[in-house]
């Protein structure tokens, strides 16, 4: 039995974006369970189990290094460049893409019971963050093998994680909102992602993008700020300029706030759409 009697009164609701925060706090154990499910269930039937969360990116990274080092052999320290780019991009693209399918899975529940509407997107992004942190271990391993020095500036990476999390969550909330009303967005989004990847300095060297429109292409691309900060901390090894921090913070928190408000203000109507 509950000690306090809950009262639900539709006339006394706060702004949906604020209300959602309270609801999430109340359902915090659900978020934990969903994150746990995402991580445990994925590798449960394999012999190596959760070790795959590290072996998987390790394999991908090795292929990247071998293939692209042949293509862009002229660029200095290219292996490190492509590794840092790909690891950030993979986290972002996979997590946002998966949050779309988690909304599809969740929509059957939204028609039956009340849940904080952001639960599924939030837990998907959180699970991907756990995978991202775990994949930093094989990244460090490859750094050692390929003789890229490990830098003290890496200790600042936890701050960076907040930015990457906020940005991914913001984008995921935005596209999930659209996908509720137009399911074909789920098919369209991967195509968009591919285009976005080639417009971002992930695989091709930075100099290539600097030449386009005097670098404007880089500066209007939010992904640039996120990849750039990660590379400075993990690869270049110096403390970033305050402007670099500010720009990344602005981009990631800005996207999160917009995504949160758009999603929450539409969330009441989700159950009306089949």
């Amino acid at each position, binding site marked *: 039995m509950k000690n306090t009697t*809950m009262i639900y009164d539709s006339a006394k609701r706060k702004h949906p974006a604020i209300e959602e925060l309270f609801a999430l706090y109340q359902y915090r154990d659900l978020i934990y*369970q969903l994150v746990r499910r995402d991580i445990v269930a994925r590798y449960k039937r394999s012999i190596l189990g959760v070790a795959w969360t590290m072996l998987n990116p390790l394999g991908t990274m090795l292929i990247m290094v071998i293939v692209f080092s042949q293509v862009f052999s002229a660029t200095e320290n290219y292996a490190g460049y492509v590794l840092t780019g790909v690891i950030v991009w993979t986290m972002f693209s996979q997590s946002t893409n998966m949050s779309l399918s988690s909304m599809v899975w969740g929509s059957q529940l939204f028609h039956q*019971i009340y849940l904080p509407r952001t639960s599924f997107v939030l837990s998907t992004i959180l699970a991907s963050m756990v995978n991202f942190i775990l994949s930093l271990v094989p990244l460090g391993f490859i750094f050692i093998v390929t003789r890229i020095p490990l830098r003290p500036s890496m200790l600042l990476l936890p701050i960076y994680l907040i930015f990457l999390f906020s940005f991914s969550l913001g984008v995921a909330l935005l596209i999930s909102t659209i996908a509720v009303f*137009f399911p*074909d967005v789920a098919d369209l989004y991967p195509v968009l992602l591919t285009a976005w990847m080639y417009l971002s300095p992930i695989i091709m060297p930075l100099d290539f993008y600097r030449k386009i429109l005097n670098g404007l292409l880089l500066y209007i691309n939010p992904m640039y700020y996120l990849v750039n900060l990660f590379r400075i901390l993990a690869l270049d090894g110096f403390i970033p300029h305050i402007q670099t921090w500010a720009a990344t913070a602005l981009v990631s928190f800005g996207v999160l706030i917009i995504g949160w408000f758009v999603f929450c203000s539409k969330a*009441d109507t989700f159950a*009306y759409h089949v």
Partner: protein
Amino acid sequence: MSNTISIEPQIDSAIFLDNVSIRYQLPNEVIRTFKEYMIKRVQGHIRHNTFWALKQINLDIKQGEIFGIVGRNGAGKSTLLKVISKVLIPAEGRVWVKGYISPLLQVGAGFHTELTGKENIYLNGTLLGHSQNEIEEKLDEIIAFAEVGEFIEAPLRTYSSGMYARLGFAVASAWQPDILIIDEVLSVGDLAFQEKCYERIASFRNSGATVLIVSLSIDQIRSLCQHTLWLDHGEVRMMGKTESVCDAYQDSFEKKK
């Protein structure tokens, strides 16, 4: 239920609805894709028809009452239940509900087949809004009620459909609700297990829960409910003493013949 509907929920109210309407905007053609939408938008072909699933419903159900809802298919019975359980938020009117409502969850919805029975109890319990501690307290009771034995540590994909359903019901009914919704005839597991389910529902009722019964069977409503609401095309056709409402409802069928 009282005959005069008040504008504020009373001290003994359990469910209170003031002028609640649920409106669906249905496009005159079904548009399922973004591409289609953009094309139609440019052509200026998008028009909406308004469909009222519920129209200006006023309700005041008292605590401890057993309340019936009758009506044909599509009359708005399920929509009303969804409004009460916060699934559909009405754009107009006010909903006020006091206490924990038994979930409308389809038995087993939200289960994950790769996780063990125990892990699924936690997952499903938190989906229903309970905390880990609350689930821990009830864990042994749920496992015992579901009668799954040693399978509780095995992944759900190894379960028979009966075990699956029993576990679902055991979790969903583990907590004594303040408001119990009986939406369908129970068809979980074998006869012995159904008997257990009915016992549990009866015990909830006896300990003072408000009960909402939605049923196609008039006899069931007549034998259990004190007051009944007759919904017709989303509107209140009649509300009051079960006997008179049910008589009128059945008469409407006679006339059709």
